[in-house]
């Protein structure tokens, strides 16, 4: 995934699309005030140092799906792990809720169900399981969409083509700031963008090797 910060307007469409897609419950005003909002995709805002009070900078942050994730190593029960597709998965039925992965993630991309937030119905997307209280949850790059796209391709006896699997946030972005594709395919658009001189990874120096690449704000800024 490549996120072009120059294009991001901070509209939060990705956040809402993610919540709807993944049955993320609204926690309510009281819980939100306590800092317990669950938002797998979160738009962080920062004051621009050069233009205080005038320019805000936005940083949409899904799970960065690290290739060397600090969160999976510390899980005592293999409830979070790097799956063969390279996605950092979470097994809700196994998680014991120790929150060690939350403490270890340098991007704070993991969220905890402090209470039973899912109170009504099974959620609107039948492809995504709802989470009970007391477990950690996180962005999965809309893994269920990959499974569905792959099944469709298999039933039509063909290979999975590029563009058939896109997470909800990338699909919803009106500014097309979020580009999704296969970084392992050197011909893909994401690979081309990832080679851009503007490309960087969050907290690259930690050696977590995230699979989300950002493009810095360059021209047109300030």
């Amino acid at each position, binding site marked *: 995934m490549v996120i072009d910060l120059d294009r991001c307007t901070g509209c939060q469409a990705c956040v809402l699309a993610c919540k709807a897609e993944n049955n993320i419950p609204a926690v309510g005003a009281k819980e939100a005030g306590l800092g*317990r909002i669950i938002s797998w995709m979160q738009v*962080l805002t*920062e004051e621009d140092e050069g233009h205080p009070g005038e320019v805000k900078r936005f*940083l949409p942050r899904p799970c960065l799906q690290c290739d060397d994730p600090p969160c999976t190593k510390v899980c005592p029960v293999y409830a979070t792990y790097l799956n063969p597709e390279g996605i950092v998965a979470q097994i809700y039925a196994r998680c014991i809720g120790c929150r*060690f992965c939350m403490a270890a993630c340098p991007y704070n991309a993991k969220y905890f169900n*402090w209470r039973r937030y899912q109170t009504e119905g099974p959620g609107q997307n039948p492809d995504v399981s709802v989470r009970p209280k007391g477990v950690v949850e996180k962005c999965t790059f809309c893994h269920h969409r990959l499974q569905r796209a792959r099944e469709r391709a298999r039933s039509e006896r063909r290979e999975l083509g590029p563009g058939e699997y896109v997470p909800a946030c990338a699909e919803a972005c009106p500014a097309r700031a979020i580009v999704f594709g296969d970084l392992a395919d050197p011909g893909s658009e994401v690979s081309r963008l990832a080679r851009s001189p503007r490309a960087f990874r969050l907290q690259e120096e930690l050696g977590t090797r995230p699979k989300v690449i950002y493009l810095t704000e360059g021209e047109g800024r300030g």
Partner: protein
Amino acid sequence: MAEAAGTRDAVLLAPIERTGPGFYWAVGGLLVLVGWGALAYWTQFQEGLGVTGLHQPVSWGFYVTNFVFFIGISHAGTLISAILRLSKAEWRRPITRMAEVITVMVLFIGAAQILVDLGRPDRLLNIIRHGRYQSPLLWDATSISAYLTASLVYLYLPMIPDIAILRDRLDRRKLLYSVLALGWTGSARQRRVLGRAIAIMAVLVIPIAVSVHSVVSFVFSMTLQPMWHSTIFGPYFVVGAIFSGIAALIVAMIAFRAAYGLQGYLKPIHFRYLGQLLLIMSLLWFYFTFAEYLTGYYGSEPEEMRVFWAKFTGPFWPFFWGMAAANFVIPVFCLVRLGRRTVGKVLAASLSVLVGMWLERYIIVVPTLSNPRLPFGEGLYWPTWVEWGETAGSFALFALAYLLFTKLFPVISVWEIEEGREGVREVEARLLTYLPDAARPEPAAAERRG
């Protein structure tokens, strides 16, 4: 031998034979606190961790602080008692039992903190079913259970002769004492075997104890988080653990000395020696703290510095400076001269250290989580009544368990005191062998357990 020990040291057995109103008052008071803790946990179990003050990003708070603190206290015991036994320090005799009991009781309480902290305590056994050994939490589970087992054995072995005394003297609880005494008669062979077993356990328990608080520190230092990711954490935590352990031991000694009238056994000299040990640990603790913070400050990485200033001048300053005062300034002030009013000074220093070491654990756990690397803003943490209740309940449960123990078994080792009286000659002979002009000692006499 059992007969003589029983009559001469009757005061040590008195709490088991008679129970005054003070005991019931104490138990009642502690039960109220335990009940508060139980209510808090029940609420949390029903509603989820939402009833605590925890949130994103401060996902660990009081429970993890308590966990580190209680596991630290456990070093009182076994480690100090093992070191004193191995170094043949004669003044250890009235102290070792109390120290060992602290360890065993507090380890249960400490390990239970993790259970309380879990979002899904019903799935605790997943740690065994799906255990991932790469996780430092599994190292904790291994190390703490090994320590608990070893400490239980190490507590139990030196209790066997005392249990035999109780079996012979008391009319109550005959079955319990008979089973636990394992047919002890005090024969020469039994004493030799027991001496060996205690010596083996004393050696074994020291590396286990060191490993316990090292791996507790690894829970933090193995992550990449600012001011956690530090190589010094293993020894730093072990030093802090022994430090708080001695303080807890002193407080327990003074409490039982007053309650059971043990002034004849726990004399100012004992507190003086322990006070000096506490002073040394205080200086050592200060050295580690200084080294840790200076290294962070000098390198001044921006993320480290955010946490650093949050502790020094930011929202956590009362905790940080409170810790510095309680762990260093006050104890040094109290302990540097112990000529007069030894017990009072040592007690003041110990209480101060207990508060300070709890703050130290808190100041390690929370500020790092409050200051995430990405621009989320600083997350502050205020515990709710649930966390306070659980914490108070944990302390009370520890005190209650300790109190009940003293009602079943002597809190000072009767046979070891007796052995100390009988062994004065041997100790004298041993001391003489240290001197250059000493005569050749009788090997058999000098090598008997001192």
